């Protein structure tokens, strides 16, 4: 039977190769911060609807923790002064945090992977204010942000290499790009 006759949907995102994680571990986080700020500013400008969906959850502090990276992100989407920064590890006092492999987080943010399915398979985990995390997920899913490009493209050559590696991994999944369906 040709491949197109099966309807399987896989959700398991790949983990990053450990060499990547090792390669970025010693890098200082400071250069990431302006890139993150720029990315967030672009997103807020391009997708004002995002805030309608987030409602009062926009005022909350989110932690995004890629489990295969030696750093994490803190996100405060509030419309007046959105803030995103890279941290070595997630601080206390966050309203909600979402953890999982980077490819899973990006796949979910880009709408190529289903967040609930990642949750059912225990790839992804949510702590704290589940409603806030859900609102963020739904708002981003609707906004159709090219999150990976924005996130990693802003970090210079290493970021681009990183993005390519992640994308290649995602593309090996039949469900991911949508292209393998047709």
């Amino acid at each position, binding site marked *: *039977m040709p491949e197109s*006759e*099966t*309807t*399987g*949907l*896989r*959700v*398991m995102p790949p983990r990053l190769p450990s060499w990547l994680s090792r390669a970025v571990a010693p890098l200082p986080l400071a250069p990431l911060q302006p890139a993150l700020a720029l990315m967030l500013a672009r997103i807020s400008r391009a997708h004002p609807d995002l805030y*309608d*969906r*987030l*409602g009062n*959850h926009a005022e909350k502090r989110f932690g995004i923790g890629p489990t295969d990276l030696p750093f994490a992100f803190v996100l405060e989407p509030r419309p007046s002064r959105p803030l995103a920064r890279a941290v070595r590890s997630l601080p206390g006092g966050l309203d909600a945090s979402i953890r999982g492999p980077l490819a899973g987080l990006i*796949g*979910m943010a880009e*709408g*190529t*992977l*289903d*967040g*609930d*399915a990642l*949750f*059912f*398979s*225990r790839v992804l*985990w*949510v*702590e704290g*204010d*589940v*409603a*806030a*995390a*859900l*609102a*963020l*997920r*739904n*708002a981003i*899913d*609707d*906004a*159709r942000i090219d999150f990976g490009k924005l996130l990693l493209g802003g970090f210079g050559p290493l970021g681009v290499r990183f993005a390519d590696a992640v994308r290649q991994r995602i593309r090996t999944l039949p*469900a991911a790009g*949508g292209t393998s*369906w047709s």
Partner: protein
Amino acid sequence: MELICPAGTPASLEAAVEAGADAIYCGFRDETNARNFPGLNFSRDELKKSIAFAHRHGVKVLVAINTFARAGSFGLWQAAIDDAVAAGADALILADLATLDYAARRHPAQRLHVSVQAGAANPDAIRFYAESFGARRVVLPRVLNVMEIAAIVRESAVETEVFVFGGLCVMEEGRCSLSSYATGQSPNMNGVCSPASDVAYAERDGQVVSTLGGFTINSFGKGEPAGYPTLCKGRFATPKGSGYIFEEPVSLDAAVMLPALRDAGVTAFKIEGRQRGRAYIAGVVRSFRKILAAIDEGRSPPAADLAAMAEGQTSTVGAYRKGWR
């Protein structure tokens, strides 16, 4: 056979259109619809634009206004009905006697569907909705087997729609207050079941424990597939032992039942999941489109493997097969 697909956001609606939906159901961003989840659903403007988009692609949009109107605030539900009609909805999906009565009187030309939340489980109940409100279709509760569905179709003048994939209520829909008993918020009144605002996860002795409104719902070992923290799919203790006393964390996948359901005379197949992301919508809709195409052409349908999309990564054909009860 129509394929009815969920959409929680305009982006999901477009994904469903592109994936081959015949019709899409969605609701307003408030308590008038039974998937009133954070960050989900449509503003008035989004609905109007999305209906226009769907219609350009020859796809229908059914607007779910399927909670029970709050006493003293019926205006909110009336406005939802009026606005959905004005936006060009192809049908309204309603559950409450009050909303059905209002829509039938105020918008006599509007096509009305009886929501699964109305729990119309037999031909007499269906006849009541058809005769009282001119309802054209009924969404059957997930408590019936295929033979019972066939009998309903034979006896009923209205079309029938059944769920074929996604979340599975094990209690009769529209008559369940388990959620509000634990959290104060219910599907009927607030459009939520086991609301995220009342869910918490905690690590305890190497297990991940989920709680709802402070009640422990489940405890998962490392790597064990998880489900939504809904009460009817939790682990509990009884004098006869502990475990999933109502239902395991499973989703409905009735793909293998599609030929039987078609032969039973069902008009439309419905996919649950307005709360899911675009990836789910696109994947599941494409998958069912292929299966239906194969059935139409008399080919044996391709094997569906959507287990990864399912709660607990496990599927059931639920009540459709005799013996589930």
